[in-house]
């Protein structure tokens, strides 16, 4: 879930923007022009992915898929997510400019962590791969939820319970994301293993 | 009606959101056994017509009847799609599972068959189309012609009562095209086929329709005639797709 404009304190907004700027700079530096196109297209695919709604019990939720994006792109996940959120801001007004930094960092940082910690196992084989992919999908969402909750909690004490609830709301999504990530990864490994050598 | 129609379009109007009307008062009553060839210029609304029939887009006005009853909602169209199988214009759009077997078994699984039955049904269908041995091929590595055949298989495995085929021979070489003609000639299924390829329609369908100014019209009589033309290997046996 994104945080809307005008909710967070200037300190948090500034911190988020600074961290995102650093992440994006690292991500961009590692990209050359012929891979830029690939990243643009993946960013677009993930933007579209975040519009996919899946049923969860009586309600439904949209996918986030930052774990899979991180596993494929590594640091380039920062500029990709930044651009995706910018487009969301422009096209749908989810979130907005001042919270762009915080929202990007919240989603991209767990994704990059996933890249370093879980990806080696994800491109392996058998059970280990499924477990790693599940963790990657689920934990990236958990991380994003946690960071979002923390940004709220650090803004004003009054938001504390809201932040906790927000995190809890992420739990079913985590499970679904984990499952979808496992299947998507096994599909990609079978059909297009080169995907995992883009970053 | 004396003979009950399988599905009916009643005075259907359709427009894509910002634009002009594509369909303007289409009427069609389709009975079991009919084999219609549908042609018309690019952008005349042929594909759109198929999408209206299968409920992929909702008419602005008019309605779709299935076995005589109006279909209002997605639930009604789900029932309709079990009997009316649409093969999309672009074979790539039809195939989304990793392997051919997964893809051909996908429909039967959704019809409620058990995993084993769905598998058997898929293997059987592939066999009937001469695609035995393709089960474990990756769908997106198939050649253009193979993709066309497999996408036909994904619908045939659901054993629909009516086949809607959207330009099934586009981009195919003459041999593959001949194979599709042969397969269709052996199938008794009712059908509507969209094509720019008149010769193909003449071999696979019995009535002709076209879309003119948003209206579906039955076509002029069918006249055999002759042409002189030339092409490489013109002295060897061959056939033409026009």
């Amino acid at each position, binding site marked *: 879930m994104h945080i809307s404009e005008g909710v967070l304190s200037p300190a948090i907004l500034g911190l988020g923007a600074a961290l995102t700027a650093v992440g994006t700079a690292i991500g961009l530096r590692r990209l050359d022009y012929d891979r830029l196109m690939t990243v643009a297209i993946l960013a677009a695919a993930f933007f579209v992915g975040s519009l996919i709604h*899946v049923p969860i019990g009586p309600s439904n939720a949209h996918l986030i898929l930052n774990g899979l994006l991180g596993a494929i792109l590594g640091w380039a996940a920062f500029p990709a997510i930044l651009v*995706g959120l*910018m487009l969301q801001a422009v096209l749908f007004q989810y979130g907005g400019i001042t919270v762009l930094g915080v929202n990007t960092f919240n989603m991209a940082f767990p994704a990059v962590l996933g890249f370093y910690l879980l990806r080696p196992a994800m491109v392996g084989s058998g059970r280990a791969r499924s477990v790693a992919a599940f963790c990657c999908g689920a934990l990236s969402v958990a991380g994003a939820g946690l960071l979002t909750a923390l940004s709220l909690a650090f803004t004003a004490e009054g938001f504390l319970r*809201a932040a906790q609830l927000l995190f809890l709301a992420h739990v079913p999504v985590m499970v679904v994301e984990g499952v979808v990530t496992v299947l*998507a990864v096994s599909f*990609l490994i079978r059909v297009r293993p080169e995907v995992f050598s883009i970053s | 009606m004396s003979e009950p129609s399988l599905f009916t379009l009643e005075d259907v109007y359709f427009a894509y959101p910002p634009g002009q009307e594509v369909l303007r008062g289409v009427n069609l009553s389709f009975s079991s056994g009919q084999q219609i060839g549908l042609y018309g210029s690019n952008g005349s609304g042929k594909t759109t017509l198929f999408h209206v029939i299968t409920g992929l887009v909702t008419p602005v006005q008019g309605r779709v009847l299935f076995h005589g009853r109006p279909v209002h909602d997605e639930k009604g169209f789900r029932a309709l799609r079990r009997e009316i199988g649409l093969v999309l214009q672009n074979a790539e759009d039809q195939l989304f599972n*990793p392997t051919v077997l997964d893809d051909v078994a996908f429909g039967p699984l959704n019809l409620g068959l058990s995993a084993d039955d769905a598998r058997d049904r898929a293997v059987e269908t592939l066999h009937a189309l001469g695609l035995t041995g393709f089960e474990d091929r990756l769908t997106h590595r198939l050649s253009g012609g193979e993709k066309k055949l497999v996408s036909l298989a994904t619908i045939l495995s659901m054993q629909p009562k009516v086949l809607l085929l959207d330009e099934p021979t586009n981009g195919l070489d003459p041999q593959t095209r001949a194979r599709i003609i042969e397969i269709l000639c052996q199938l008794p299924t009712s059908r509507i086929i969209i094509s720019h390829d008149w010769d193909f329609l003449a071999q696979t369908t019995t009535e002709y329709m076209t879309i003119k100014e948003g209206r579906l019209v039955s076509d002029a009589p069918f006249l055999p005639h002759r042409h002189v033309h030339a092409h490489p290997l013109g002295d060897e046996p061959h056939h033409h797709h026009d």
Partner: protein
Amino acid sequence: MAAAFSVTVAMVRHPGTAAAGLLMAMIALCASLPPKRALLRRVVLVNVFILFLWLTVPLTMPGETLWTLGAVGVSREGLELVGMVTLKSNAILLAFLALVASMDSPTIGHAMARLGVPSKLVFLFLFTYRYVHVIADEWQRLRTAARLRGFVPRTDMRTYATVGHLFAMVLVRSLDRSARVYRAMILRGFDGRFASVCRFTIRPRDGLFVLCGLAAHILMIFMECFAGVLRV
């Protein structure tokens, strides 16, 4: 411009100023005349998050209790906090809608380039925008294919498995497409630099817009300082 406004509003602490900001944003919005229905939908979307805060924060934030609903008390501080956030959120949203959303993305891209955003990021932005439609169509087509074969989304493994496969297929096809498009570009002499025939024009109306914006801005900063002085 929009960014500056958003930043200022985000910093504001006084409700009066926030309300004034909201008012100004509304005026700006009226001046730029966007289509009404789309606008309404967007405002509702953002306020879903705000609604979530309304439902939780006043009930859970400790402080002076205004009244009680069964076991939980509604706190004054909670209400104030949320009220403030609501004003600010909507002010920024409306200003943003007025100033940015009435531009199309290519214009934003060119504007970004003018503002000194790294060219790689501008490139990324423009092409992501370009491909969002293509890929959304691709997703839609694959989903259609699934529907045609009797797929009904439910809360079960098969649904999630199918979504996983569909999405992976969209990825694979997007990548193939990216390779083909890159080829199309180099076939036409592309060597990494972007040239454009589209000229960025500044109309008189835009100038007026910027002037009013600046005035409103200064006014708001004044109000904020003034409020601060009063409070002391």
